[in-house]
């Protein structure tokens, strides 16, 4: 909370961004405390990781300091206070924190906890709700990621010509950091393997396609930071990554369609195999993979696009 207030007061954007990263990490640990392991995992990788990274990439392109505002934010304060009042008013009748007999724990959720083992067959209830009971939400979520990818792609387009010229010109900033490079080279396979582990182990422990995708992307981003865009581009073609963003969504929705063709409802994995539980397994595996692919691809694309922009600016100067 202190962090949050600090953010509100600071005008150095770099510090603000760093602080918000810290804020995210703190949040993640709080989530952990509240038994939300999956959420904590995600918040840590996204809020503290990717989002900070993106902010920094942007900061590279725009001025670092905020101008002092000339206006007194009275109106804003009023609106905020009104909102706060409504919220506090709303909390008055809330079930108390941690109470086990609150309505949320009485309806709907018990079924997930009690029957998911029989119906879906995997221990991580979060995963089974995410990928099966509310699988359609997750498809939507993947689509949101894809949409953001499309948005950034179309906004931060760089022409091929600029790219080619820039490629020759711009070496990585950290060309000389040999130790770092060696360490990173060693780390990279580990990161990628960890990502795969998170991907496929989501059934049993915290993790899943989304977190895996982010970690995978982080690996590639790390590599890019150290070895420069040109080298990364040789390994991973932008066009391929862009298509992969689409492929993940297609995979996910394709599973749904397959279920339909096999006589079930959309995303009804039971029909994928003879045994419903096996069907669920297969379905979840595939859709998580879809999520992972899209997320990783989009994150990498985002990073590339922001970096290209930087490159373009340098080149133009």
């Amino acid at each position, binding site marked *: 909370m202190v962090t949050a207030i600090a953010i509100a007061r600071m005008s150095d954007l770099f510090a603000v961004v760093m602080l918000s990263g810290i804020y995210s990490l703190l949040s993640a640990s709080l989530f952990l405390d509240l038994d939300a392991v999956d959420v904590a995992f995600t918040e840590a990788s996204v809020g503290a990781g990717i989002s900070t990274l993106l902010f920094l990439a942007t900061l590279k392109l725009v001025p670092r300091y905020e101008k002092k505002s000339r206006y007194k934010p009275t109106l804003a304060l009023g609106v905020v206070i009104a909102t706060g009042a409504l919220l506090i008013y709303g909390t008055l009748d*809330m079930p108390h924190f941690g109470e086990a007999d609150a309505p949320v*724990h009485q309806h709907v959720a018990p079924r997930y906890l009690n029957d998911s083992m029989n119906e879906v067959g995997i221990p991580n209830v979060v995963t089974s709700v995410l990928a099966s009971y509310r699988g*359609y*939400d997750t498809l*939507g979520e993947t*689509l949101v990621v894809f949409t953001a990818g*499309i948005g950034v792609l179309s906004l931060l387009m760089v022409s091929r010509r600029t790219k080619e010229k820039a490629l020759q010109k711009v070496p990585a900033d950290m060309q000389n950091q040999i130790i770092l490079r060696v360490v990173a080279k060693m780390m990279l396979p580990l990161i990628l393997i960890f990502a795969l582990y998170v991907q496929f182990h989501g059934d049993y422990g915290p993790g899943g396609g989304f977190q895996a995708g982010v970690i995978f992307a982080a690996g590639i981003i790390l590599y890019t930071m150290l070895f420069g865009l040109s080298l990364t581009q040789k390994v991973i073609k932008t066009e391929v990554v862009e298509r992969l963003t689409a492929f993940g969504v297609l995979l996910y929705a394709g599973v749904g369609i397959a279920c339909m063709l096999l006589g079930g409802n*959309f995303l*009804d994995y039971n029909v994928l195999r003879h045994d419903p539980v096996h069907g669920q397994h297969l379905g979840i595996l595939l859709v998580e993979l879809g999520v992972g692919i899209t997320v990783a691809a989009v994150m990498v694309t985002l990073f590339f696009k922001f970096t290209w922009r930087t490159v373009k600016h340098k080149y133009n100067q």
Partner: protein
Amino acid sequence: MTAHFPILQVIIPLLAAPLCLFIRIPRIVGIFAILVSATAFFISCSLLQEVVTGGTLSYQLGGWAAPWGIEYRIDKLNGYLLLLVSGISTIVLVAAQTSISKELPENRHTFFYTAYLLCLTGLLGILATADAFNLFVFLEISALSSYTLIAIGTDRRALTASYQYLVMGTIGATFIIIGVGLMYMMTGTLNMYDLAERLPAVYESKTVLSAFGFFIVGVCLKLALFPLHLWLPNAYAYAPSITTAFLAATSTKVAVYVLIRYIFSIFGIEFVDMSLPLGDIFLFLGLTGIFVASVAAIYQLNIKRLFAYSSVAQIGYIILGLAIETELGLTATLLHLFNHALMKAAIFLAIGAVVYRIGSAQLSHYAGLGKKMPWTMAAIVAGGLSLIGVPLTVGFVSKWYLVVALLDKGWWPVAVLVLISSLIAVIYVWRVVEWIYLTPPRIITDEIKEAPMSQLIPIWILVLANIYFGVDTRLTVGVSKLAAQSLFGVN
């Protein structure tokens, strides 16, 4: 296969969007998008027919029963809007083929269509779903893709407009999830119909009231109800014309749908009555919105901005119908949803055709275009007449119902105000008419030609629809009535 129609409706554009990235050739992507949207349209036609004759359809996603899994539920209300959204989208896409070639660089076309289809998916998903959280997810899909659609153009002001929309839209969406969260907290469920069953038990709770408050504010941000409309005029004015046509005709309408759904199907009108003077608030905001935005429209120099303000005003009418809180009022609202979509789509497409030819949406550049582009201009005028509410157009039908509903409620001063406000519409529409027909052209513009057929045809389909539904109101009035009855019947 027909059993899967409720989901196919949404899933087809959903699948098509990523496929666009594989096709990559703009022309083909364009045609592909039309096909997809047309398929959605045909599905929605058959859905509406089924719903009107057979009753509500329910579809369980993933095969999980309702409160545990996500449910799609098509009734008369959303069946009607699904038809509207997919229909308008198809027509707009036809015009898009040529229109965007002038307004967007070639390499963004594929992205444009992808974002367009995503937006369509989002809107259809919002309409079809019966799950409060799923609604939020699709709301975000449509929102993110509309930010893209707005910012994708070449005007730099589109960027700020899109950013502004992004901030306000996200605040709105966050308010909505706060509302959903609080409701979930009190009931333990996310399914709308399950909520409707469980909420009466906790009507007295302050939490539910505050949930409702957050919800209303969030949705009103999305639907640009005055004074939360600030994002709209710029977004509509500087976005590519096709985007404007599509969003103006559909996205605020869908937000209104969400509002109606929450008020009538989830919270129930009794709750609304006893908790908040919502009718009065809507009445006040609706009326102020109508007047302020209409007057603002008069002073605009950019024709897209002009009609964007007019959209804000029209939303005022729609909300006014809700404020009446009677079946007749709701009918008027639903009618106007449909009718306004028709007019605005026609107007903005026609403006798009002009931008295609002269590359500008400045009113002053329209001087003397009446001679050069008679058909396009006639379409703008026809749309304008419909906005005013001239008989034989859809605008008249909506206004008639609104006034009847107001008189029925006994609010005759409001009825008078509504009629006065349509006179303000006369003023801003007539400013356009005078520029078009009565001002000699500034520059000698021999090379300006009538818009291409590929744009004129969709424009005129919409104009004719404006007139057709202004005379034969069986479909629109019929379905609106049925939907209004069912919403009041439930409670």
